């Protein structure tokens, strides 16, 4: 599913050079559920962005579904994101002027899927995520848990193989947070590869495989039993 080899990404903060990712190697099989933990600035988000093709590494190679992604232009990367990757963000990133349903359908709109198919797919997810009576509402009229469920529906509507979640419960109370996590895990149970970036130790510990990051390096990978 995912293969990184010596992926490096560095940023310049004034004079200082910060290693977002420092020669990271990583392999993730299809259907895996892993969490990425580590302090702020350890490179978790950079890893997520690189995996999500939102950011391009300075060096190293990244294969997604055995396809090399290095050197792809923005159009091809957008197409890969559209077909293979779903995102869930801490602050939901719903478009406030669109209704929940319109937000869910947005990726299909961008992909040019015709309205009949769009309705079928979104109805399926709305049903499954029990958003039935809320779909005509705008995000401002929804609770945090509902918003995050809408965001998950939006991430799943293109039927991606990989779901990247950045602090998906960070803005939620424990009850809605637990609901969201259960939902994500349920999807993982159906074969979706799930990668969760979090500060939350309890959430991180739920994943069968946990990565710990520090200074742009993966310092622990539970799949390899300790330090990498």
């Amino acid at each position, binding site marked *: 599913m995912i293969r990184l080899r010596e992926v490096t990404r560095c940023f310049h903060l004034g004079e200082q050079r910060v290693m977002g990712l420092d020669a990271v190697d990583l392999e993730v099989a299809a259907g895996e559920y892993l969490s990425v933990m580590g302090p702020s600035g350890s490179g978790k988000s950079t890893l997520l*962005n690189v995996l999500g093709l939102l950011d391009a590494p300075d060096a190293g190679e990244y294969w997604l579904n055995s396809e090399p992604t290095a050197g792809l232009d923005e159009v091809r990367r957008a197409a890969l994101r559209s077909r293979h990757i779903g995102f869930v963000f801490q602050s939901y990133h719903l478009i406030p002027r669109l209704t929940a349903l319109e937000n869910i359908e947005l990726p299909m709109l961008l992909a040019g899927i015709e309205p009949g198919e769009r309705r079928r797919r979104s109805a399926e997810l709305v049903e499954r995520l029990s958003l039935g009576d809320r779909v005509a509402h705008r995000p401002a009229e929804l609770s945090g848990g509902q918003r995050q469920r809408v965001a998950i529906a939006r991430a799943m509507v293109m039927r991606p193989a990989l779901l990247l979640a950045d602090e998906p419960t960070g803005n939620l109370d424990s009850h809605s947070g637990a609901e969201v996590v259960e939902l994500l895990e349920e999807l993982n149970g159906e074969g979706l590869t799930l990668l969760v970036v979090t500060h939350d130790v309890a959430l991180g510990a739920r994943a069968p495989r946990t990565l710990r990051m520090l200074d742009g390096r993966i310092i622990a990978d539970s799949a390899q039993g300790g330090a990498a």
Partner: protein
Amino acid sequence: MRAADAVALWFGALRGHRSRSLMLLLAIGIGVLAVILLTGLVEGARSFVLDEFSLLGRNTLIVLPGRKETTGAVPPLTGLAPRDLTLQDAQAVARLPAVRRVAPLQAGLIEVSSAGRSREAFVLGTSRSFFALRQLDVSQGQMLPELPLEQAEAVCVIGTTLRRELFGSRPALGEWLRAGDRRFRVIGILEERGESLGMDFAELLVIPVASAQALFNREGLFRLFAEVRGPAQLEPGKRQILALIKERHEGEEDVTLISQDSMLAAFDDILGALGLALAGIAAVSLLVAGVLIMNVTWIAVSQRTGEIGLLKALGATPAQVRLLFVGEAGLLALAGGLAGLALGELLLWLARLLWDLPLAAPAWARAGALLLAFGVALLFAWLPASRAARLEPVAALRPPGAR
């Protein structure tokens, strides 16, 4: 992305940012409105002038005493004033082969009174041919009688305003009125025709030319209207008249000939240039609207970086992001342009209704204003939209505080 979906997104974005949309709508609307109104006014003035001069008739020449054309040469220091145009000149012109009829004109202001009411009136001394020449008719009574030009007669035809002011509700036909030191019997009332060539027919007192010469004690004619026998006779007519006057005026070609075509051409040139200039000024307001579009689109792009990042994360290509922002601007320009056009047409229509002026924006101005508004919007939105398209998705997604 399907076209219908793109349009739906544009509309959604415009509705979602109401005040911004309204502001741009207004700017573009005013720009288009300015183009429509200004070109409408000029076009109205133009067709007004054209109509006025068309009333003169294609076959009519106006002969003015004196050489009005400027030539390069130093004027001869003869010390002689131009010779008057006389009734004999008029009669001679009337006998030319190319000329069908001639109406001499003597004119002046004089005090007119009847039964205690008096006012100043514009007196026109002419002949019966004048009525045919200017396609003028009477609504009551008759026109001036067919007379030898040098014969005076104490009759007059008056305009409707003059009739009302001198006679009120009393019948005027057959009544006498006093003009200066002479009395004239009213034999006809001119039909309503409004102003033509700066002459308000409703205010006129028309008398035989010889009577006017006596009234003003002046021999020389104000001008001469000559109608040629057909369009083909216009040039020969001009030549013959000039040759005749030269012969009669001791070798001096001391008259000026004006034809409808020459006047029309002059006015058409002036008003055409004026129209273009005003359309240009109005177009500048559209450019200003364009700059506003650019600024507001810049702001929109900055405010909506999060949305742009999200769209990219959801698989939007740079071209799609650009299309969204450019499309919004284009849609606004179209809507604002149409609104401005509709308002402009409405105002012109009201003006036509209220003042009976032929005000109408020409088709090129309507189409041009819309196209310009649209083009300017696309052009000026392109830059900020391209910036949005180039934004790194990861940079765009970062919350503002972390940037």
